[in-house]
């Protein structure tokens, strides 16, 4: 087993992690950046391998210059030994071990592929968790047909491989993130048949303060809208996908227009042909590691389970900070600001010199958070999608559990919260451990119980003792080494 000893381990090399690592390293702290990705950047700045084709960052990326300059600086610092860059390291467990943290990793693009690589443990006095988020999904008829993918998946294929997901694509769901997905696909040769957005950006009119405070945020969206117009991509606001059509692969979708009350307006249902549907309903923060460590959480405005942090981005667990989507979905700009604050605070706790730009950073964070909160309110998940789930609609893709089984677990068997539903009907018990269906199952459970979705419902699908699938042989050794000091497992 390979072991490293550093002052600070930053987990995640997306916007928040990179910002945290650089801030702490420049403050004089020895930092390890531990990331599952083969190349840095996280989901947001995912980039292709050199052989994948001609890569023009401007056609796919926002803030690319900040990313490359930060990344270059980290590489420089790696040359001096201040920074340790650990790419392709999947963290499966973090445990307290005395006054340090032990970060256990398995290696590789897909660690299951070669079950023989030596495991790596990073020992660190402080932790910054910048674990990011993935697309949030809702079940609807036909969503398991091949050709239905997540909006982030379409984006990952494009950013990471320069491959367009399909010939004729529909991008659907809700949120400003749908626009760059559609724009990227259109620029790289896909025909984007439509963007189906459940809400409308006109909703921002209700939040003038938030929009003015976050300079540039609305401009980004307007830029995408203009380019989509030039690519003749129709953006249909207040429309939803009612079903995916096809037998063994997607051939089209059924869409409908929502009326003022969020119901499908009679006579507006129509079919649009496509070979790929890229769909997303916001994001789910990746919380396995903060939950393993016992960090306090709460429900955010968008109903995501997020890590609770203080003004310094410190979590409820001493020695652990969190930044980026894990503390509330708000995009890359907010993540970098939070990351910097977390990195500086962690460095200060290790005795590094106090830093000058604390106040402006906090002001920027508060305006970006204000904008994020407005965004969540402008782009809520419409009730209609879950309301239209019939008993036959598949909810858990892994264990093939339908909405009827979840309903019966509540109505017939008396389950009152999601953890019991999970035990009775098995949603979230398969390969993905509820990463995909957890949010929907929690919401459906709450609906059938006649209450709003609550923190324990979501925690039922986010608590995992192993954060990433590990070849079985890996599990025994490190756990045995660390007892009995560790109480962080």
């Amino acid at each position, binding site marked *: 087993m390979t072991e490293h000893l550093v002052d600070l381990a930053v987990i995640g090399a997306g916007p928040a992690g990179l910002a945290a690592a650089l801030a702490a390293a420049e403050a004089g702290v020895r930092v390890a950046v531990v990331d*599952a990705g*083969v190349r840095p950047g996280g*989901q947001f700045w995912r980039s*292709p*391998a*050199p*052989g*994948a*084709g001609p890569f023009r960052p401007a056609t796919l990326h926002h803030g690319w210059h900040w990313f490359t300059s930060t990344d270059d600086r980290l590489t420089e610092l790696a040359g001096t030994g201040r920074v340790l860059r650990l790419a392709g390291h999947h963290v499966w467990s973090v445990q307290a071990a005395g006054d340090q943290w032990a970060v256990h990793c398995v290696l590789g*693009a*897909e660690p*299951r*592929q070669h079950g023989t690589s030596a495991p790596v443990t990073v020992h660190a006095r402080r932790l910054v968790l910048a674990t990011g988020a*993935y*697309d949030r999904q809702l079940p609807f008829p036909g969503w*398991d047909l*091949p*050709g*239905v*993918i*997540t909006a*982030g*998946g*379409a*984006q*990952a*294929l494009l950013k*990471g*491989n320069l*491959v367009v*997901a399909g010939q004729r694509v529909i991008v659907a769901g809700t949120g400003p993130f749908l626009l760059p997905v559609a724009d990227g696909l259109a620029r790289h040769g896909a025909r984007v048949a439509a963007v189906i957005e459940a809400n409308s950006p006109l909703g921002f009119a209700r939040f003038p303060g938030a929009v003015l405070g976050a300079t540039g945020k609305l401009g980004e969206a307007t830029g995408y809208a203009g380019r989509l117009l030039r690519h003749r991509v129709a953006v249909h606001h207040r429309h939803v996908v009612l079903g995916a059509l096809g037998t*063994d*692969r*997607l051939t089209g979708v059924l869409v409908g227009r929502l009326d003022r009350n969020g119901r499908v307006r009679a006579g507006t249902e129509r079919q649009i042909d496509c*070979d790929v549907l890229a769909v997303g309903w916001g994001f789910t923060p990746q919380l396995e590691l903060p939950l393993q460590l016992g960090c306090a959480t709460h429900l955010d405005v968008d109903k995501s389970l997020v890590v609770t942090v203080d003004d310094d981005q410190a979590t409820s667990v001493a020695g652990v900070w969190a930044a980026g989507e894990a503390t509330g979905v708000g995009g890359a700009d907010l993540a970098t600001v939070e990351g910097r604050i977390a990195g500086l605070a962690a460095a200060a706790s290790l005795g590094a010199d106090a830093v000058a730009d604390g106040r402006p950073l906090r002001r920027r964070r508060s305006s970006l958070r204000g904008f994020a909160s407005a965004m969540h309110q402008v782009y809520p998940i419409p009730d209609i999608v879950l309301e239209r789930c019939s008993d036959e609609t598949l909810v858990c*893709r*892994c264990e*093939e559990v339908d909405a009827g089984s979840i309903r019966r677990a509540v109505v017939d068997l008396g389950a009152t919260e999601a953890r019991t539903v999970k035990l009775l009907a098995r949603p979230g018990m*398969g*390969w*993905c451990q509820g*990463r*995909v269906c957890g949010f929907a199952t929690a919401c459906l459970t709450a609906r059938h119980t006649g209450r709003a979705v609550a923190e324990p419902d979501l925690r039922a699908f986010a608590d995992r003792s192993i954060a990433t699938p590990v070849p079985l042989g890996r599990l025994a050794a490190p756990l045995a080494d660390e007892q009995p000091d560790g109480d962080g497992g």
Partner: protein
Amino acid sequence: MSRPREFEILFDGTPLSCRDGWTIGAALTAAGVRSWRTTRHGQRPRGLFCGIGICFDCLVTVNGQPSLRACLVPANPGDDVRTQKGPGR
């Protein structure tokens, strides 16, 4: 020795062209293949869904090793990629 920029992989015996740096999932998608697995209970076809290693819908057998996530595994020249049925082991 440098790797070729383009090479072939086999999907259920059929050669597909692939660029260096693509994942198996990207190579299958670029070739128009949408599914390479069937589910345990309903025998339903599945392929890429999340694209980032979260959902495990894209499980595939590569060079005899089952249940690998196609969206993560980098393609290598001559890889023997096979459709996977049921739990894959």
